[in-house]
């Protein structure tokens, strides 16, 4: 955990940087521990345990900027490291846009830094963890003759961080995380071994789902048996709540200040304009209690606040940090989203499927990419053919291709099944008119 020694060291190093010519500097110290247990079929496959430290420092020297990090955090060694870093920074070209944030924007609250830390983490014994991994496997091992391998794992960790800068910002955070994962491989006709997985994760031990992970992985693998590709065509597409992030991610990247500054975004100059279906409202909710991704301040110390990103299809904000605000001559917002939430509809995944006469449910993406300048994308997919409101056939080895702006304009319906154990709380979505290529 972060100790007084860590804090004193960080403060001393800020002082040392100043003495050696830095006009400003920022330090973050992080430390934590991890453990993981992977069980396969009848044996423990792998156990791992570790602890780590990291110190990062950003230096503003003679109008120049560099950032440096090390896991060697002994004082004398650090001084040498910082001295070298200052010398290196001095060689660079000047960049007048590099500054610390305006202190008015700093988080100044008194909220507990450990609201996302579970003290039970310290009490858990290795045997208990191993048993969870083993139990995930034993739920399904040898329950079906088609199973060729089952693997289950348990992992946990804690992470503590401390951020301080020469303008007087000081903040810290502690967090725990627990996860259970299972995967099942099956023998099919031919050489293919369809595989699927399931997991749960939580910041809190008591909230971690400890049963049913293996069974769910098996169920997901079984339903993939007999996958084939179908005819190319334009179909309505439902993307399940596990996979929406693949389509959301290019949009979020396009809102980033650096992408805008480098003219590497398909959403330049779109503030206040309609960029997507009127059904889409997307928000950043950084202060949801005990939630993964929640935070009071970003990596510069700037206070987070709830923000509407897209309202009824109209773009409301970009993610602009201090540097890009200076470069773009815009007001800073925040360096990035914390917890993304959708305004949800009234149907769950089954409900979305039930209303489709014909379409494709996408349950996994396989590779592909999106052009950051134009929004043109092409992704591999697998899932199910939907006919008359039912899943009739597993499909795979197909691509979807299109443009991000067109795709999100065709968002037809939003599910009510957002996953709450991740920081991107995506529900299942229905899009009209998506180009699939297959046979």
């Amino acid at each position, binding site marked *: 955990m972060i100790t007084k020694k860590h804090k004193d060291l960080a403060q001393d190093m800020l002082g040392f940087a100043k003495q050696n010519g830095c006009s400003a500097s920022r330090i973050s110290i992080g430390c934590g521990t991890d453990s993981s247990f992977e069980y396969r079929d009848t044996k423990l*496959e792998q156990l791992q345990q570790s602890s780590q*430290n990291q110190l990062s420092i950003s230096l503003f020297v003679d109008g120049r900027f560099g950032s440096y990090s090390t896991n060697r955090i002994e004082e004398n060694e650090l001084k040498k490291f910082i001295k070298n870093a200052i010398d290196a920074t001095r060689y660079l070209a000047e960049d007048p846009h590099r500054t610390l944030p305006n202190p008015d924007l700093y988080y100044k609250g008194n909220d507990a830094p450990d609201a996302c830390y579970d003290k039970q983490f310290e009490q858990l014994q290795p045997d208990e963890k191993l048993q969870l991994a083993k139990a995930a496997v034993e739920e399904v091992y040898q329950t079906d003759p088609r199973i060729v*391998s089952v693997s289950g794992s348990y992992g946990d960790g804690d992470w503590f961080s401390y951020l301080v800068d020469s303008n007087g910002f000081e903040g810290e955070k502690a967090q725990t995380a627990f996860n259970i994962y299972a995967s099942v491989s099956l023998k099919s006709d031919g050489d293919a071994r*369809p595989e699927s997985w399931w997991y749960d994760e939580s910041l809190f031990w008591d909230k971690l789902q400890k049963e049913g992970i293996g069974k769910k992985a098996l169920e997901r693998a079984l339903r993939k048996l007999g996958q084939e590709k179908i005819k190319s065509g334009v179909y309505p597409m439902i993307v399940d709540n596990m996979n929406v992030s693949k389509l959301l991610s290019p949009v979020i990247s396009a809102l980033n200040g650096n992408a805008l500054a480098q003219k590497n975004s398909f959403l330049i100059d779109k503030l206040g304009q309609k960029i997507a279906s009127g059904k889409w409202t997307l928000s950043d909710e950084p202060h949801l209690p005990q939630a993964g991704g929640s935070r009071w301040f970003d990596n510069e110390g700037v206070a987070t606040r709830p923000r509407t990103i897209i309202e009824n299809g109209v773009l409301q904000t970009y993610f602009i940090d201090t540097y890009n605000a200076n470069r773009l001559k815009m007001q800073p917002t925040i360096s990035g989203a914390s917890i993304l939430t959708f305004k949800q509809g009234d149907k769950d995944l089954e409900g979305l499927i039930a209303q489709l006469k014909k379409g494709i449910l996408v349950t996994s993406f396989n*590779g592909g990419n999106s052009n950051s300048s*134009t929004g043109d994308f092409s992704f591999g997919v697998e899932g199910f053919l939907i006919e008359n409101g039912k899943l009739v056939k597993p499909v795979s080895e197909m*691509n979807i291709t299109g443009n991000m702006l067109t795709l999100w304009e065709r968002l037809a319906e939003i599910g009510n099944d957002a996953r709450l154990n991740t920081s991107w709380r995506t529900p299942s979505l229905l899009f009209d008119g998506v180009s699939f290529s297959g046979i």
Partner: protein
Amino acid sequence: MQRRDFIKTGGMALVGAALLPNLLQSCHAGTKEGVALMLAHFGVSENELKKVIAAALEKGGDYADLFFEHTFYNQLSLQDGAVNRAYSNIDFGMGVRVIVGDQTGYAYVENITMDEMLKAARTAARIASGNATVKAVNVSETTFTNYYPFVTSWEDVSVKDKMPYVQKLNDRCFALDNRVVKVMASQDDSTSYILFCNSDGVLCADYRPMTTLNVSCIMEENGKTENFYSNRGFRKGVEFLTDDIVETIAREATEGAARMFKAVKPKGGELPVVLAAGSSGILLHEAIGHAFEADFNRKNISIFSDLFGKKVCDEHINIADDGTIAGNRGAINFDDEGTAGQKTYIVTNGVLTSYLHDRISAKHYGVAPTGNGRRESFRFAPMPRMRSTYMENGNATEEEIIASVKNGVYASVFTNGQVQIGAGDFTFFVKSGYLIENGKLTRPIKDINVIGNGPKALADITMVANNQQLDGSTWTCGKNNQSVPVSLGLPSVLVKKLTVGGE
């Protein structure tokens, strides 16, 4: 956590992140290799290593190894026309691995003291649960062929020596095409000190250089914006930085971006695909390389698990995975578990002749390890990974191959790929290529995903040209949350049928 394995090249992800200074204190003299120097570097003695290994084996492990690493990473980056950001990182530590049968215990420490190392050894030892069976080990220095000789170490130059090349990269892009509006460029290098010791008695040292040069340019024409990138990555010293390499990648990036404006998307569906020589080696990496990694096969979860010794493609095809190409991004003098760098034929005359092994899988199959036991850093246990994966020459010409296709695509620049080991479905993203119409390359194409199935695609390779090329781009391969540098290569080939994205 998903058993999805991917590869990507650096350029497209060149965000405004890090840049670079040279922070390293030179602490070497003359040769930078040699066990004695490395022992001194990490402040440990042979005797201490033996004690840590003994502690690792005290619960009955069959085998233990210790991996020490000290890596200095530097990056310089340019945006808005000036080299205006530096980033460096230092990573230091050692990992202890204990194996019993197929099972692995692993722990690492960032402070290399006897107390900490013994603690880590006893944590890793818990994978076993009996009494020590391996007697005290003797270690002796093992030396290997050096596949990454360099002239000047990255530790011997500073920011000011490297900056001009990054600046020139920017300036050349702007000079080559007046439609260029933004250039992002970066250069990075890393230097790793490695010391390795195991209970078989191997004690060895390595000094690993790595460097990349990247550029991404944004171009505007008639209100439209496009981007393109180029990069190169090698295990080389400072001599890697030349005006020639700057010119090459500046041209690739600007010519690529210009081509984008004319590019179309093909009509999607199953089409013959001609893969250009060089970076099309991504086909091998995804379609078969991962599925040949023996951990997936010993676990019986690869689509190739039952195909060992069988004919998997045309009898004229030979495919190797090679750690011995001098200065190559996939070169390794010894892998991260002390096995010599080597060249491994995975397909010989069309027959699957070897999986890619680490020590665990080699023992499982009763064969010698193939030098594929690699890890991202001391924070991870090694597993089977590719090095440089390529197909050898056939006897067609590229012209003949293109001429044989009535309606298809020609793919030549790729950004990333992925595979599902069990189902065998793999994909790669074509950043740039051409339509083939009536045996001729016609309009450029762009931004299209291609998907296929490993064994089927391999069997569908019907023509192989005589123009084999290794690709020098900065490929990084991801597996189970560990990234390692790799490279790949291919002569031009015809794959009879793959599913091409399109509208």
